[in-house]
């Protein structure tokens, strides 16, 4: 009897081999809704860089049992309706098992309802509006400190630096900007501050002279700003042009490379309320900064770190649960403790992240230096 397999047997086994091969490596569909166009497109592009780095690390290490992540990104443009449509597409058409995004608090607030409806876990960095984790949505996990947490952590130090009691707000007109005006007002008033002016400008506004004139008239000792991307650049330049002498603080893009490239030393002296600083002395951060520099040729900022953390939490949940199903991932994320560039990230029952460090930075020579740090404890 011949020991060689018959030709017909070999041909017949080809479909079996094919099936076996395709079963061996199934892509894991993970989605993200980021602003890739519009007013904050530059910051959205940086978040995406951080996110892609985390995906690359997971895939290069072999993925989950050979299955690698197929990372699908849709443009939310920081417009709630568009972010919702993007999330719907990713979940219903692309069948993603987890979602990251959507950057702006208003867009995250809209998109998290989609995650709830389809029961897909959503990890949100960047968005700091406190109410997101007060809506009882068990599928939303916010890895950022809220504006209230940042305000409570640094209000006392801010008043010390301000050297006076009068405070004004100059914030962008969205959920994030408005919640900053509310949250910091509460915390600063507790430290004896008096709010003398609140100016709210549209994100597409380029000429802020009238708002700044309003602020100047109130003669504040300190001004708290909320501005991303081009708003941060224009607000800084125009405050300097109008010779405003108040001490300046801000949440947003005041430590971004694009910001420093545009304003240079005009940004010096601005205090940043930041979830991340690249100079933070922490082994996970040092490794992250090295990898990011190697991949992109620049130092990461808070947006890059947020994108990286969003996807690291998802990839870690894949590894700990060993499953590629939304509900298993949700449970794994809820119980997770993930080492991140700003420290360990855990979640409370409302999906609010805690355990990491936050920073009060000071811009000096067009770089962010650490002026103070605070640890975020488990919130109620």
């Amino acid at each position, binding site marked *: 009897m011949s020991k060689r397999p018959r030709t017909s047997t070999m041909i017949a086994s080809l479909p079996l081999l094919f099936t076996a091969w395709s079963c061996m490596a199934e892509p894991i569909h993970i989605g993200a809704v980021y602003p*890739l*166009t*519009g*007013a904050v*497109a*530059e910051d*959205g*592009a940086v978040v995406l860089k951080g996110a892609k780095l985390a995906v690359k690390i997971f895939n290069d290490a072999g993925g989950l049992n050979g299955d690698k992540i197929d990372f699908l990104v849709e443009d939310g443009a920081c417009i709630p309706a568009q972010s919702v449509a993007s999330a719907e597409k990713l979940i219903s058409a692309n069948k993603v098992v987890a979602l990251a995004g959507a950057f702006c608090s208003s867009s995250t607030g809209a998109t998290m309802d989609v995650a709830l409806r389809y029961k897909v876990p959503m990890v949100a960095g960047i968005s700091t509006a406190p109410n997101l984790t007060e809506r009882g949505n068990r599928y939303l996990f916010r890895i950022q400190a809220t504006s209230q947490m940042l305000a409570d952590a640094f209000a006392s130090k801010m008043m010390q630096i301000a050297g006076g009691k009068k405070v004004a707000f100059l914030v962008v*007109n969205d959920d994030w900007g408005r919640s900053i005006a509310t949250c910091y007002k509460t915390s600063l008033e507790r430290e004896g501050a008096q709010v003398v002016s*609140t*100016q*709210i*400008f*549209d994100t*597409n*506004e*380029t*000429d802020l*002279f*009238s*708002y700044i*004139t*309003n602020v*100047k*008239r109130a003669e504040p000792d300190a001004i708290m700003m909320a501005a991303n*991307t*081009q708003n941060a*650049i*224009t607000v800084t330049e125009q405050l*300097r*042009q*109008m*010779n405003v002498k108040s001490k300046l603080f801000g949440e947003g893009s005041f430590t971004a490379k*694009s910001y420093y490239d*545009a304003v240079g030393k005009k940004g010096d002296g601005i205090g940043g309320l930041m979830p991340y600083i690249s100079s933070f002395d922490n082994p996970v951060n040092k490794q992250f900064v090295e990898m990011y520099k190697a991949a992109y040729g620049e130092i990461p900022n808070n947006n890059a770190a947020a994108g990286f953390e969003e996807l690291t939490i998802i990839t870690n949940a894949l590894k700990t649960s060993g499953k590629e199903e939304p509900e298993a991932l949700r449970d794994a994320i809820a119980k997770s403790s993930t080492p991140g560039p700003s420290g360990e990230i855990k979640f409370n029952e409302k999906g609010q992240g805690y355990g990491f460090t936050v920073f009060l930075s000071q811009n000096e020579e067009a770089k962010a230096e650490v002026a103070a740090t605070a640890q975020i404890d488990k919130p109620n």
Partner: protein
Amino acid sequence: MDFIPQYLFNGLVVGCSYALIAVGLTAIFGLMEIANFAHGQFYMLGAFFAYWLTRIAGLDFWTGLAASVIGVMLVGVLLERTLFRFLRGASLSSSVLATIALSIFLENLALNIWGPRPQKIISPFESGGIELLGIFTTPDRLSMLFLTFLMVLILHVCLRHTHTGKAIRATFQQREAAALVGINIDHLYTLTFAVGAGLAALAGVLLGTIFVVQPSMGGVATLKAFIVVTLGGASSFAGGIAGGLLLGLAESFGAIIAPSYKDAVGFILVILVLLYKPNGLFGKRT
């Protein structure tokens, strides 16, 4: 009261930028009756051309400005010949749809070529603020005021005292009659479109030194231009200028009363004007 001159000056500067963009749209909307929702993209392209020519190609500011304006005018001619020509006589909804599509295309083209990062055009003047009689401003803003008045003067002289200017005015008044007396409407449309695009580009270059340059800047410019044209009257250059200044001043003073409703000021103004003057402040009665 001390700050009133500051608000007045702020409003004049912003109003001039609106007027410069809107006058171009007046020419296109008024003459060709095309609602060009891509008009703000000429403003954006002007800014990006100037950024590229001065920051990357190393030209000096004034050469870059002239080259950018001419470049966008050529883009205008190309678009007029390939797209807008076919929209003449089309329904309003057709021109709205087509120009919105063009606007999205141009914005995304710019995003792909130059990226989302906000850029600056380096000003030929010293940076930093200056104080004049208690008013804070910058050399760039002053030059914008000056150049806007210069452009208005040039436009006025050309419209009043040149053969082409008279032909444009005649076509504005009565297109068919103008064609009957031998005015070449085709050439006039192309020229008007190019001039309209060029004026928007000039505004883009000047404002690109004051603010930032990024692909999304065109959308807001289009919106403001339409508000101004509606306020001033669709077929009146004087209306475009007056409307722009009025909007700028109203927004500046509106910011004192209700800062977060500053944008609403423009729309409230439009409603009020249209209630009493449906064709705009300087518009023709039909």
